[in-house]
């Protein structure tokens, strides 16, 4: 519980990173993303995800296309754009760097 509450800010900051990772792997729609995040510490809800996805789309990190679904209305499937791929690479490198630094500091 302590970690859950105390590090909410960190998780929040990294949520975009996590979403980029998921979207990079495959074509997904919003419910898929929620499902993938569900069991992780990044578990989130529509109320948070949708505004964030729209922001990422505005920043041209992700893009979506409408795909007809067997049941119900067509769904928005998200994929990574080139810019998103660059951002993901940058973030990954930065994250590794951060981890490395933190490990070094402890010595």
């Amino acid at each position, binding site marked *: 519980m302590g970690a859950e509450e105390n590090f909410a800010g960190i998780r*929040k900051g990294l949520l975009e990173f996590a979403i980029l990772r998921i979207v990079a792997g495959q074509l997904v729609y919003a419910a898929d993303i929620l499902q993938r995040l569900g069991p992780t510490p990044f578990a989130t*809800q529509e109320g948070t995800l949708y505004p964030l996805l729209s922001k990422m789309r505005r920043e041209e990190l992700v893009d979506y296309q409408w795909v007809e679904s067997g049941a119900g*209305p067509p769904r928005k499937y998200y994929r990574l754009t080139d810019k998103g791929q660059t951002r993901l690479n940058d973030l990954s490198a930065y994250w590794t760097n951060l981890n490395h630094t933190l490990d070094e500091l402890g010595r």
Partner: protein
Amino acid sequence: MERVVTINLNGNPYQLDESAYDALRAYLDAAAKALGDNPDKAEIIHDLEQAIADKCASYLSPAKTVVSQGEMSKILQEMGPVEGEATANAGTADGGAKSSESGGPAPKKRIYRIAEDAKIAGVCAGIGAYFNIDPNIIRLLFIILTVVTHGFFALVYVVMMFVIPSAITSEEWAAAHGIPFNAQEVIDEAKRHYRDFTADGPPWSGNWKWRRREWKRAMRDRARAFRFYWRYAPPTAAAPPTGPVSALVRHFGGLFAFVFAIVGAALLIGFIVSIISLVSTGAVLNWAPPVGVPLWVAILVLCIAFGVINGLVHTLRGISVSMMTGYPSWRYHDGGFGGLVVLVIVGWIFYTYVPEAHNWMLLTWMQLRMWFETTFNVHAING
């Protein structure tokens, strides 16, 4: 028994019971507010509606066609609060809720005319709401000032009528009272008030009682704000107003609403002129109060007469407005006839139990009849 509301979520009809609908409405409004001027607001709301629709579908089957309130609140719980740019910066979801609970800036307060509580144009009601005073006190002040200044304040009123905007949307209504208007703000406010009045002071002190009353009153105001909201900001996806209103009826309603508004204003001016003339010359038109009737009684009679006639005009105006808009005129029903009934009961009690009042009323009646007969040169039945 609950009413069922059919809503349209992205082109698919869903049936909700009324409280479920209210919850959904509050959620979507809070979402719209949180998103603020986000350029993708419409799209995000659209997506949210779609997600809610999907979740609703999972609760429904051929045997079960209506989403209940319990199910809806579960769905909305799953959706989570919508985070806009503003709330996202404030911290995490739970952190954000905490910070807003501990009192953000007080809602902005502005003067509006409040047609809902209006006797004439809602100026006094608006001022009363702004200063948190009973509007009747403001009205009395206005009348006294009008008399003292020989009618100057009636002019002030007319000017204010045009200068002060009317509270039309729920935001404006809330701003007029300086109270929050969306669900989250209402809840936060309620919590804060509750804490305030439980935090300090022993429960047996008179102060506490007063505080509790204040709190209850404040809650009632909020409930009214909400009713007002549902009534005047009908959601696009919701059921249309009760019963279709034909264009003809609407035009007639509009015409009559206008006419009655004018009549009401004319009445007020006539009333003020009468008071002034009564005070300065001791007579209204050609009628002077009978000898022995003190001035204040004459003024009281004038006030009561004005109250009765104005109440009737107000009610008619309310009916016209409801004809025009198609919304039931619940807010006018206690205005005119209710006041009349109270007046009649009070009058009857006085008439029965206070001999002086009894005599005085008889005398007034005689005077009135005499005046009527002489003025119009007719003879009343059984003269």
